């Protein structure tokens, strides 16, 4: 059974904009799949359709063999947005335990899990802090801890490190891979950074814009576990080139919508 099964999905918005056409994608359990493409290719829309936060115009999405709406109600996935979306009125610990409260976990069970989660994201000692007392990278780690607190089998991430500086982003990339190994979850990860996608993913889904569709899929056969040295291997650069060429061939106007991703590479 696939972790995520997307069949023939299309999405048009009321204004007449076609965001996605004929998307077919299977994600197997424990895979780390990145969706990459220029802005306007519908990658975030596709992620939200998987999470049943947006309804597709046509087609079906199944998560763990269930319709997406059913999976959402069963808490089959956790989600991380580009903004950490933490609540200022809650401490770090209370932010992490929010989904556990909604699942009606008892207090002692919640507290034990929050402690584990803080260890997982290396924020032990910050439980009583408020979100605005943390740096952007730390806030995003709290957001990841919250998404994983109830052990969902699937983690949906929408450009989670897009607002962070390059050094923080690379450190969090490595941390995310460690967490992915430790938890054994499946990850669907939206990004516009080519090196980030290559470093993290087992598979990269390259999308093109207007209308959004899948332009090609790249298997990243870089050995696991990936380390700092992975980014310096020739194979890493070959894969980066492969993804970039796919993006260029799919008609992404280079130098305009691609600019952020290319700029990051030379950095």
């Amino acid at each position, binding site marked *: 059974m696939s972790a995520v099964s997307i069949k023939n999905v299309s999405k048009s918005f009321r204004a007449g904009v076609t965001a996605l056409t004929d998307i077919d994608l299977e994600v197997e359990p424990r895979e780390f799949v990145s969706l990459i493409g220029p802005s306007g290719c519908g990658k975030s829309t596709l992620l939200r359709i998987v*999470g049943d936060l947006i309804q597709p115009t046509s087609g079906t999405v199944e998560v763990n063999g269930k319709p997406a709406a059913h999976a959402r109600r069963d808490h089959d996935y956790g*989600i991380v947005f580009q903004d950490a979306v933490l609540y200022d009125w*809650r401490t770090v610990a209370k932010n992490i335990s*929010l989904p556990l409260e*909604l699942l009606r976990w008892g207090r002692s069970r919640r507290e034990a899990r929050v402690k584990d989660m803080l260890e997982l994201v290396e924020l032990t000692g910050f439980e009583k802090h408020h979100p605005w007392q943390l740096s952007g990278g730390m806030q995003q780690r709290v957001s990841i801890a919250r998404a994983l607190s109830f052990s969902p089998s699937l983690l949906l991430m929408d450009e989670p490190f897009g607002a962070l500086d390059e050094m923080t982003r690379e450190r969090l990339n490595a941390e995310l891979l460690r967490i992915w190994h430790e938890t054994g979850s499946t990850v669907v990860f939206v990004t516009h950074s080519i090196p980030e996608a290559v470093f993290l993913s087992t598979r990269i889904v390259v999308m093109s814009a207007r209308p959004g569709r899948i332009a090609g899929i790249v298997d990243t056969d870089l050995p696991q576990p990936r380390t700092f040295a992975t980014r310096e291997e020739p194979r890493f650069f070959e894969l980066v080139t492969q993804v970039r060429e796919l993006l260029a061939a799919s008609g992404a106007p280079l130098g305009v919508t691609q600019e952020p991703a290319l700029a990051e590479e030379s950095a």
Partner: protein
Amino acid sequence: MTSLVQPVPRSVRSRVGRQALDLLPALAVFVLGIAAWQAIVVGFHIQEFLLPKPTSIAHSFWENKHPLWSAGIYTFKEALGGYALGCAVGIAVALLFACWPPVGGAFMPYAVAANAVPIIAFAPIMNDWFGLLNPFSKMAIAAVLCFFPVMINTLRGLTSVHPSSIELMRSYAAGRASLFRRVRIPNSLPHLFTGLKIATVLSMIGAIVGEYFGGPIDALGVRILNDSSYGNFTQAWAGIVMASLLGIAFYALVAAAERLATRWHPSARAFQNE
């Protein structure tokens, strides 16, 4: 596994001392303002019926402190009753509008219209409805004044929630009640308190304006009116000082409640980064 970053120790410096220091500029302005007032009245020989000296007002205030206090408390009770009523209705209506936006669309113009009612015109009608000596006639006026700022600010707080916050709660399959309890209501608190603070002073104004159109002889507004009618301007000013002091105290009380209720707010950072 050791953490890369360690928690920052909380500030240990006395917050109370720093807050007292923050009040110094305001205190200096007050003292200078009073001194300038006194100097102008004395220097230009301004007649007492135009503008009494601050020292005369202070003297009159002290001489009449007992009747002024009991009149002030009477009026303050009216203001407080109206405040409670106006704020409660304002919060309830804001919740209703936020829960059912179509209801908000249908009734909002009338809420705006209620706010546009000239309170001076409204006061005699309330006295007529509920009776001159019935404190409820003054409470009704204060309530009408308090309603709108509380309603409009609370509604803004309830609805100005980041879309991602709503998506997050939806991803957890949280219901609407949960969204209100855990996101919309806490998010509205800083806005709600803005409305509640504005309403404190408005409730005092409402009660006194109501009393200008008639009320018991020992009400503050009636006292001020009678004193000025009989040419006791210094005493009228003393009454105004009592009304202001009560209004300021009420405001300070609600502001203190706000600080307690929204200690989590990022604006608290100002204290912690010192």
